[in-house]
């Protein structure tokens, strides 16, 4: 009888395994899965120097490419929706099987009053997705009893069991998965998830005025489970000679009151008890910079917009750079491979204007035109040719129009040593498409830039190419 039962179990488990592996019951790849795929892909060829852990505030609030360009190292954001510090700890365990960062930065809104057992609804759903996207079987086995109740094990380990209802409620997804072809994406991805471009509007500001802050710092506590996880995380980092730093992604100044209480709690815990630095951008709120435009337009849970993330990214990277704890961090700005990986990516030219070998000879950023803001204009020295390059955010351009557009500039230059004022027209570069921008470029071997006087983005199909 035992043999018969074993045979039946093998067939049943084999069927489950096959359905899971075929991904017939998977939902569309979301950023949770993309992030884990991303870290595995990145670490297959590169090292991560700075690993950032946290929750949705982190992957919205930190721009890893900007941080990498600024600090001259490889940064990856491994944050999960609704992530707690317990999740961070177990995700870190798996991350350390594929990389050995010199520093790990942990966002401290993950240190909250929640416990894994209390997760429900969408929080539980994201937990399943996070677990599902991980690959290390041993680490997943260790994690299972810490994240899930025994009744949830099957849902956690098997996508087809968790989504078996698709057979009745979402057959389109199954059909889509059946026809899906694997798309190989070579774009550089470091864990970011851009969601919010516009900031808080008057309607929400009025609610702050009438109802007051949404959060009371006095009520923010930390559960025992999170405190234990913090200790485990610190022990893990210390055992691996990895430097931890902690930071807070802020919310809008009117969103929270009595933050002092929360800050004292965190400071006593992280700085006094454990002796590590806490970069708290809420406590030291830069009112002149962190305007309403920097935050998501919601009264409740609040994330940073693209603008806000740039500010915080620069703040955090500067804090890390100036911290004595950054001594062990590498500086890859002398590494051509690193430059090749990042140039053309966001903030690269702003943070690397003059480098070894004069690779980047000129840069100007945030050039405002009639129809969009050009992120950066630079002159790059390739092996045998000099290139003028302009980077325009994809959000400013219709995908269908991109190849018809041209960046036209009136510039003061030196041509063969002689100062001149000329027009330069940069067409679309279809060979180099970073994740978030389109590149417009031409070779410019004899040009030495002095000043950009005027810039325009023109649709060559609609108008005559002239400024």
């Amino acid at each position, binding site marked *: 009888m035992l043999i018969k039962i074993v045979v039946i179990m093998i067939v049943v488990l084999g069927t489950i395994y096959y359905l899971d592996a075929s991904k017939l019951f998977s939902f569309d790849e979301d950023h949770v899965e993309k992030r884990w795929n991303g870290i595995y892909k990145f670490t297959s060829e590169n090292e991560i120097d700075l690993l950032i852990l946290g929750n949705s505030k982190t992957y919205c609030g930190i721009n890893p490419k900007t941080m990498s360009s600024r600090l001259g190292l490889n940064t990856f954001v491994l944050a999960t929706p609704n992530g707690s510090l317990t999740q961070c700890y177990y995700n870190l365990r798996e991350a350390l099987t594929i990389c050995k960062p010199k520093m790990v930065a942990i966002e401290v809104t993950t240190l909250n009053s929640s416990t894994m057992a209390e997760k429900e609804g969408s929080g539980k759903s994201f937990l399943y997705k996070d677990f599902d996207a991980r690959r290390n079987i041993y680490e997943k086995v260790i994690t299972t009893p810490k994240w899930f109740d025994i*009744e949830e094990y099957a849902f956690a380990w098997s996508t087809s069991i*968790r989504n078996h209802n698709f*057979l009745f409620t979402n057959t389109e997804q199954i059909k889509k998965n059946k026809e899906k072809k694997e798309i190989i994406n070579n774009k550089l991805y470091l864990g970011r998830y851009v969601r919010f471009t516009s900031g808080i509007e008057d309607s929400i500001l009025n609610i702050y005025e009438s109802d007051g802050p949404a959060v009371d710092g006095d009520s923010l506590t930390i559960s025992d489970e999170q405190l234990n996880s913090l200790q485990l995380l610190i022990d893990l980092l210390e055992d691996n000679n990895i430097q931890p730093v902690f930071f807070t992604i802020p919310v809008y100044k009117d969103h929270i009151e009595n933050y002092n209480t929360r800050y004292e709690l965190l400071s006593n815990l992280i700085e006094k008890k454990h002796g590590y630095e806490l970069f708290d951008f809420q406590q030291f709120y830069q009112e002149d910079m962190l305007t309403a435009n920097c935050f998501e337009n919601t009264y409740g849970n609040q994330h940073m917009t693209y603008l806000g993330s740039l500010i915080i990214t620069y703040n955090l990277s500067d804090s890390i750079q100036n911290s004595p704890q950054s001594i062990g961090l590498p500086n890859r700005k002398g590494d051509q491979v690193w430059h090749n990986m990042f140039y053309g990516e966001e903030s690269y030219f702003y943070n690397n204007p003059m480098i070894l070998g004069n690779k980047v000879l000129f840069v100007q950023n945030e050039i405002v035109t009639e129809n969009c803001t050009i992120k950066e204009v630079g002159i790059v020295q390739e092996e045998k040719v000099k290139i003028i390059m302009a980077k325009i955010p994809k959000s400013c351009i219709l995908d269908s129009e991109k190849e018809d557009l041209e960046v036209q500039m009136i510039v003061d230059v030196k041509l063969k040593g002689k100062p001149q004022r000329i027009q330069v027209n940069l067409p679309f570069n279809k060979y180099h498409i970073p994740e978030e921008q389109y590149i417009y470029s031409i070779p410019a071997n004899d040009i030495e830039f002095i000043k950009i006087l005027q810039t325009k983005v023109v649709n060559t199909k609609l108008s005559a190419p002239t400024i």
Partner: protein
Amino acid sequence: MLFNSFHFLIFFPIVVGLYYALPQKFRWVLLLIASYYFYMSWKAEYIILIVASTLVDFGAGLAIENADSKKRKKLWLFLSLFVNLGLLFTFKYWDFFNESIRDTLNLFSIQFDPSTLKLLLPVGISFYTFQTLSYTIDIYYGKIKPIKHLGIFATYVSFFPQLVAGPIERAKHLIPQFYNKVVFEYERVKNGLLLMLWGFFVKVVIADRLAILVNTVYKHDESHNYLLDHTGASLFIASFFFMFQLYLDFSAYSNIAIGAARVLGFDLQSNFRRPYWATSISDFWHRWHISLSTWFRDYVYIPLGGNKRGVKRHLINLLITFLLSGLWHGASWNFALWGVLNGLFLIAQVFIDRRKTSKKPKTSFVKRLLQSAIVMLLWGGSLIFFRAQTFDDAIYVFQNISLTGWDNLYELGLTVSEYKFVFYCLVSIYILDYIQEKKDLYKFLAGRNIVIRFAVYITAILMIIYLGAYGEDVSDNQFLYFQF
């Protein structure tokens, strides 16, 4: 711990493995520990109630047997009744009783504000108290001798396969089995496992899927009475589905209990015998929740006099029995009314039967179908009181139920494919039940070749996993990221 849980899927094989590995004399210890663990995994502190009931009834049983007068025997029996029914009353009926008095006094403008206990109803209390009561009552009437082994008695009271939802076992039938030497018998164990598999299939794939629609329509919580948003055909289909949900869910649970016990070498009584093929109301009650029906027959109806004290008394006894049966199912007047309604149906049956000749004519299939349809109609109608949250809700359903207004059929929680699937399943179950009346389907399957049998087992397991109605709240397409 529920039968249809991952916890049980791990618990049961471990218990079975240890059971057959242990010598016979220690097996009751394992079963007792396993049963207490089974119960405590729900709410640990409530094990005290089972222990209290066990100790009182074990002692009372011995005391009744050893009492030298009928008066003393009665006293000990009364103690057993008082403790068991007292516990049941406290946890299940205290608030209902007080609220009923309050509402009655309010009719006469008398203010009465009783304290409510709002105690969590211990799972299975209605089942195990009746099981232990049957023990002391049977000792009192001299039908059985008391058991002198406290451990085995405790195992009888708490035996996990039937602890929380029956069948309610009589001591005379179950206790001797703890003394039987049980060896691993392939056919018996296989039979038990197949019965469990069938139970899981019926519950998880069919009954729980019917529940989705029923719960959507009949939903009535503190914030809103969703039932009032439905009318016409929605009410009809929900009430129709509930009739099958109740049968399939309960019979499945019984089958899993009986199957699990069979694997361990115990024979539990059958609890359902294809009730929707009953040809009359009285036939129905010989087929539905048999262990409870016979309990009320033996410990309420017959002691009241049954049908032996004249027609009038007979009818009163029927009404009392069914009223109590109704209240046993739930502490509300809805359940009482449900019970009384079925009592009245049976009374009508009594009058119809008195007019029949003694010879029963042979029934054709069509006539049988018609008879069972009438029984189901009456039964299904009474179940509206059973399912509705309040009396007003039940009246609302009766006033608004019809076969018109099918437009919002797909807004009741089931998709088109689910409706089709449910339809095929219900028809299949109905047909299989009929076939089972004539033929033993288990023997039929056992006679097929091994490939067919394995295909059936594997298909059933995969259908439970992939077509089961569970985990709706965990699938990936439920949630969007926008809050995180």
